[in-house]
């Protein structure tokens, strides 16, 4: 078990290091265009560029610059954002926090809804609930977020006029503005998780050990809660962990549409404006979340599944 955690964490750090190298080579070297031109614009003179390079240490060898960059990254110095004229950390953390709030409410709804419906329909394969869930799930998952965002806006903002159309939070945090973005994300994703849960539960219900449990004379409730759930939840757990990763990139559309000041919108902004330092920080955060959730999913899977834990 300890070996596994150490190995997974080690692998995670290694992946991040490799990604950081690729990022650095692409954004901060001449490999994909002159960084000075990228920052100063195409109309800057050669002299200005040279001055900029000298000031920002771009004339040092690439390896030295890379280690310098990684070192300052690790110690929390993320550099200066070109667009915001402020330290990247000051811009990034509030945005990340906003996305975390959005993500939290999305998951707070997705997990219970999809697990409850998935389990109930998996328990009785072919029932009315099961079939309606299947259809609903396919329907909602196949409508992309930008389409459902437009649809929900037309209904709740312009039609019923219940909800605000943007979520800029200009006058401080307003939970009402969070409803539409969360709704779009939940509707898009719950069907997928629910269908995975359903498949897993349906498979477990046909297993022979469920028959054993029933024929022991246990109450149906005990059979489900003690014998079926534990095994049925192993597969959805991994799926849910992977959704965290999806959310980070999936929110770009939603945040942009609702003008929500989150991480996704920031990432979009940084790349549109050639804000190298901000882009690097955002990319590294995205990679860290991706690799981190993957590692947690692996370790959690092992803990949930004793056949792997003790082998």
């Amino acid at each position, binding site marked *: 078990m300890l*070996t596994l955690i150490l190995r997974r964490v080690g692998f995670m750090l290694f992946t991040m290091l490799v990604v950081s190298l690729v990022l650095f080579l692409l954004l901060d070297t001449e490999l994909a265009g002159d960084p000075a031109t990228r920052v100063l614009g195409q109309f800057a003179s050669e002299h200005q560029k040279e001055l900029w390079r000298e000031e920002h240490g771009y004339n040092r060898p690439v390896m030295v610059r890379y280690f310098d960059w990684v070192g300052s990254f690790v110690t929390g110095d993320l550099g200066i954002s070109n667009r915001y004229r402020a330290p990247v950390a000051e811009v990034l953390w509030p945005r990340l926090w906003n996305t975390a709030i959005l993500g939290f409410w999305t998951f707070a709804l997705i997990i219970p809804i999809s697990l409850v419906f998935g389990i109930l329909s998996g328990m009785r394969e072919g029932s009315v609930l099961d079939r309606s869930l299947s259809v609903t799930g396919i329907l909602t998952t196949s409508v992309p977020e930008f389409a459902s965002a437009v649809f929900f806006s037309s209904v709740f903002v312009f039609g019923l006029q219940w909800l605000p159309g943007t979520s800029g939070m200009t006058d401080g945090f307003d939970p009402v503005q969070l409803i539409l973005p969360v709704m779009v994300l939940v509707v898009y994703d719950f069907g997928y998780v629910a269908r995975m849960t359903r498949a897993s539960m349906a498979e477990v219900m046909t297993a022979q*050990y469920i*028959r054993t449990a029933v*024929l*022991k004379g*246990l109450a149906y409730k005990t059979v489900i809660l003690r014998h079926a759930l534990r095994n049925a939840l192993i597969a959805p757990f991994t799926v849910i962990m992977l959704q965290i990763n999806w959310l980070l990139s999936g929110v770009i559309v939603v945040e942009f549409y609702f003008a929500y000041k989150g991480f996704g919108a920031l990432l979009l902004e940084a790349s549109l404006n050639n804000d190298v330092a901000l882009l690097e920080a955002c990319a590294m955060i995205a990679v860290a979340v991706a690799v981190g959730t993957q590692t947690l999913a692996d370790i959690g899977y092992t803990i949930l*599944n*004793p056949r792997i834990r*003790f082998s």
Partner: protein
Amino acid sequence: MNNSANGSGNGATAAPILECKDLCISYYTRAGEIPAVVDFSLTVQPGETIGIVGESGCGKSTVAMAIMQYMGHNGGITGGSIKFKGRDMTKMSEAELRQLRGSEIAMIYQEPFASLNPSLRVSTQLLEVPMTHENITRAEARERCMQVLRDVRLPDPARVMNSYPHQLSGGQQQRVVIAMGLLSNPSLLLLDEPTTALDVTVEAGIVKLIADISAKYGTSQIYISHNLGLILETCDRVFVMYSGEVVEEGRIKSLFTWPRHPYTHGLFACIPLPTADKNAAPLRPIPGQLPLPHERPVGCYYAPRCNHFKEGLCDARHFPMEKVEGDEGANHFVRCLRWREIDHHQEAPGGDPRAAAEIGDCCLEVTDMQKYYPVKDSSLKALFTGKRMRNVKANESLNFRAHEGETVAIVGESGCGKSTFAKVLMGLETGTGGEIRHDGVDIAEIAVRDRSNRQISSLQMVFQNPFDTLNPSHTIGAQIERVVKKFGVEKNKAAVRERVMKLLDTVKLPRDFYYRKPRQLSGGQKQRIGIARAFAGNPSMVIADEPVSALDVSVAAAVTELLTDIQREHRTTLLFISHDLSVVRYLADRIVVMYLGQIMERGTTEQIFSPPYHPYTEALLSAVPIADPEVTKREIVLDGNVPSAMDPPSGCPFSTRCPRKIGAICETENPPERQASERHYIKCHIELDELRKVEEVIHVPKEEERIRAE
């Protein structure tokens, strides 16, 4: 074992535990109602063990599930009653059933691993039985579980309690399932093929345990099996089922000595009893196939396959069981209108004798063959000590020879390395040492892709599971044709086709099977195609890896006979890999007994089956259930499990389980191979003279001494 219960003789006055009367069970499918079991009647007295025997699809498991009232949503009882201690279970509510299940009636299943919840500890799964049914504390329940685990002879019950199912071996898992069944001291135990998934020596241990339990707890049992030998060893009374109905029932001794129904006769003629011999008294397969439920004929269901069928009598109407006069206590009933007219002596097992095949020159010579698998140890300890690679010795110094036209059997339990050897021989793996000379060429280290077409076609294989070995999307004809073309047996298109047709004739399948897809074939037919495919390139040697173990008794007999016929005709060398000593005894000329990658004993079939024995051979022979009440066996039950090949014992591999261990030498030194007589070798530390003093394990009475001979 059979006298462990009072049985129906004097138990007639006691109230029966279970009474099934005229039970009819149907499944509902898109095709309509399918009657799975028809008019099933059964009475179980206290302490009695009932056997239900039959081939797959005969409805024996359906009966068990009906007794548990667990039919699934598409099955239902359409008639009759199931009375448990006088109360009709078919009319009980779900809550009432719950009180019976697990406390009054318990069940033991075919696959112990699938029947245990993989993510709960054994303790959780055991404790919930008494905690649900009785008002006792956790500590008391725990004490009870430990006691029952000791009763099922599991060493170290505390460790077992704390384990997850996958940490136990198959035999231990089945003991846990048995313990689970016994926890609340039920009055009725249902056993559905409880040993089918286990190794022979483990099976023997479980069978003995089940018999002891019925004696100790006085539990009534219903034992369901396809194996007549196991039924004989465990039961007091037996029901023979065919196509959803009971065709014959009676006390074990009576039914096994004087079977009355043609189907029962047919079953006995299909199993390789010790009296069967592939030349003098071959198996006699039952012609035809089991009818599907909606294709059952009017009258006797067995009529289309029966030699005694009489038009106008057998196919007139469905008829009830008739009592066989004679031994009153036997309660022997038979569902046959002509049982009085049939000459039952004529029906005794053993077909027409055939000439023995000629044995030619040596065609396979295995010398010091070894196969080691490197295994990576990924523990932290191995990481630090640097010992990350270890060798698993799957085959260690194998030596034997096979001649043309000879059948050599490799026998051993799972993990003994018999399949690894087959893989090396086929070139699917390459050996790590020694030689395998086939037709004079050493092929041990030539992988199959480096072999010539000639070499590949002369060494072919028949696989264990016919269901997975045929490509589902190609026709039968195309699959055999491809082999014929690939090996260059025939080039011309018409000639290739003719050759495929001849092969279909050889395996006794109609020629229009050429156009069929594998899913349209039954298991036995698929295995025939497997045989046709293997013989398509005129092989000089065929390796058959458990070719009949996945098949039903009567189908297995037909496939076995087919294989021997083709072998005799083509003078092919047959390497028969099996765990079933009764089939091996029937088929093989020479036997190689393997244990943990090493050959323990090798010699002719006669030499292996008579003293001197290797102690492991002795135990194997004793473990084989024999469906002949007049054959006596010496009982040797092995303790423990086959050790893992990853971590084999030092010294003699069998030393951890050997009942004849002579001392420390067994644990420290690998035993020498001693020559007992010509081409008969035993690998043991015990002197040959000592081994010769041992009595024979299986005693078969002479024909004239038999009760049947009267």
